[in-house]
């Protein structure tokens, strides 16, 4: 018991106030996911429809008989708001698909490595070291360059570049659990390796992996945007928040809104996921619950 524990507990503010950030984050993410799912019906304009006559219109411009260009148009006359709504689909797909993919691959490799130990562990962990020494974005740029642009390749490359994170955490858990009494007991009762890994080690290794995965989703969204921004992610003809930022960059001084609004969408999404992940982490880790 430390001195801090003996101090009187600070007066608690109401639940809503304490969880305001979580509520806002949850609300924003709900809106983002819904707009990604319902994009086709929500957009005021076809996001890919070019209309040179109405290009570079500032936010709020409206013509008679047409919906307003709430967030303006880009240099090809495409509606920025419609682009952001459609682009959310790419960001969310990339974010969740890569985390699930890399999480499954990395966890499988890590658990086998940590349980098997010996030479297999040495080889796999050296591989993890090598990959982690390579800055993600650099490895991803190289691979995208070799494989070519496209959504599938972005997801594939992000899975290949990020599985080691999960492998390392899963291995540490498997190492710890493999010497625990209940695993020894299971082995003594004649359980085979697959059964021990899947029924006894995996469920107990999940907590830290879930936290790592939750914090990885925003990272993956940023990586997709960065790759597309650099011109190796999605082709510029496709709509993602990253490609919108890339087009907006060339018109930054003339038309600030093209790059500004997709960026705000990215920041709000990432902020929301980070806030909720932090809450998740604190809830799953009893040591942090009172901090």
């Amino acid at each position: 018991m430390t001195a801090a524990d003996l101090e009187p507990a600070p007066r608690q503010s109401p639940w809503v106030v304490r969880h305001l950030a979580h509520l806002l984050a949850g609300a924003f993410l709900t809106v983002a996911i819904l707009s990604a799912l319902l994009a086709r019906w929500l957009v005021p304009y076809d996001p890919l429809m070019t209309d040179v006559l109405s290009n570079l219109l500032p936010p709020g411009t409206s013509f008679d008989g047409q919906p307003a260009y709430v967030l303006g148009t880009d240099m090809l006359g495409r509606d920025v708001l419609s682009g952001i709504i459609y682009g959310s689909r790419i960001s969310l797909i990339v974010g969740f698909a890569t985390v699930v993919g890399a999480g499954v691959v990395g966890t499988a490799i890590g658990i086998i490595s940590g349980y098997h130990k010996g030479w297999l562990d040495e080889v796999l962990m050296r591989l993890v070291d090598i990959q982690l020494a390579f800055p993600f974005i650099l490895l991803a740029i190289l691979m995208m360059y070799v494989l070519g642009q496209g959504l599938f390749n972005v997801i594939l490359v992000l899975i290949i570049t990020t599985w080691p994170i999960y492998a390392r955490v899963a291995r540490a858990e498997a190492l710890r659990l493999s010497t625990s009494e209940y695993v020894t007991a299971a082995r003594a009762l004649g359980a085979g390796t697959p059964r021990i890994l899947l029924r006894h080690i995996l469920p107990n290794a999940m907590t830290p992996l879930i936290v790592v995965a939750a914090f990885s989703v925003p990272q993956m969204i940023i990586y997709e945007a960065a790759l597309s921004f650099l011109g190796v992610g999605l082709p510029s003809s496709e709509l993602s928040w990253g490609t919108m930022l890339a087009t907006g960059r060339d018109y930054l001084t003339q038309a600030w809104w093209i790059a500004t609004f997709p960026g705000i969408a990215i920041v709000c999404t990432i902020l929301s996921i980070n806030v909720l992940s932090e809450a998740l982490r604190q809830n799953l880790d009893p040591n942090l619950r009172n901090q």
Partner: protein
Amino acid sequence: MLRYLSVRIFSSAIVIFGVVSIIFVLARLVGDPVLLMVEPGTTQQDMAEMRTALGLDRPILEQYASFVVGAFHGDFGDSVRQSTPAFDLVMDRLPATLLLTASALGFAVVGALILGILSALYRGSIIDRLANALALFGQSIPNFWLAMMLILFLSSTMRLLPSAGYGTVQHLIMPTLALGLFSLARLTRLVRSELLETLSQDYVRTARAKGVGPVAIVVRHALGNVAIPMITLIAVDFGALMGGAVVTETVFAWPGVGRLMIQAIGQRDFPVIQAGAFVIATLVVVTSLITDLAYALVNPKIRYA
């Protein structure tokens, strides 16, 4: 200690070797690296000549061996566009990249110490809340978008700083902010939580009971405990910082390795891309080796292991 040292140096060498192998495999994965280097529409004969010139008609293991030997001599072949050795082009740009990363790291460390100490000392105060908010935002803003917003506000609108280029301190400010904010955010949270933990230790309470003031407690008793986790986090994040530099340089037309590589991608100049990737990865590995050794020196548990 000697054993730890040799093991650590040996494994770093293996990692660099592995990085070279990854670059080789990536280059050959598509089957024909010549396709990565030529403009669309090059004739079959030109491509065949290029293949022979690059030694691509030799057996794959022989190519691999000569690639590895070449890489460790800094030989990645000539740049396809500039007909100078690709490695030399990269090394010319390296100082600019190092300047930017060092500056960003310095900004992050100093900023994090100030914010972290203040928010730990005045826990729950307005300063603490602001520092927390900054830490949360800093980890949620992509550096390339922050870079563009800085250009928009500080350069285009307020005309305070040059939007791009290299050479003066003014040129360094915005790239430093854009690249360093993420590390600043991560380090601030670390400094705060480590300090809070240290400040609740018995020996700090004893020091307080003896009448030591808050500043002296932090400086003389607590900061030493923060140093080691800070060094560890910096080492872990250094790769991300170098990767971030690639993107930041592109936005600010900063003449570093990252911008060179992105330009090389646009020009399909594969030797330059390979050399750049090799140099940056090696730098990350060497940095992590140095921090590990420094860590071993200050930590007796490892020193005597």
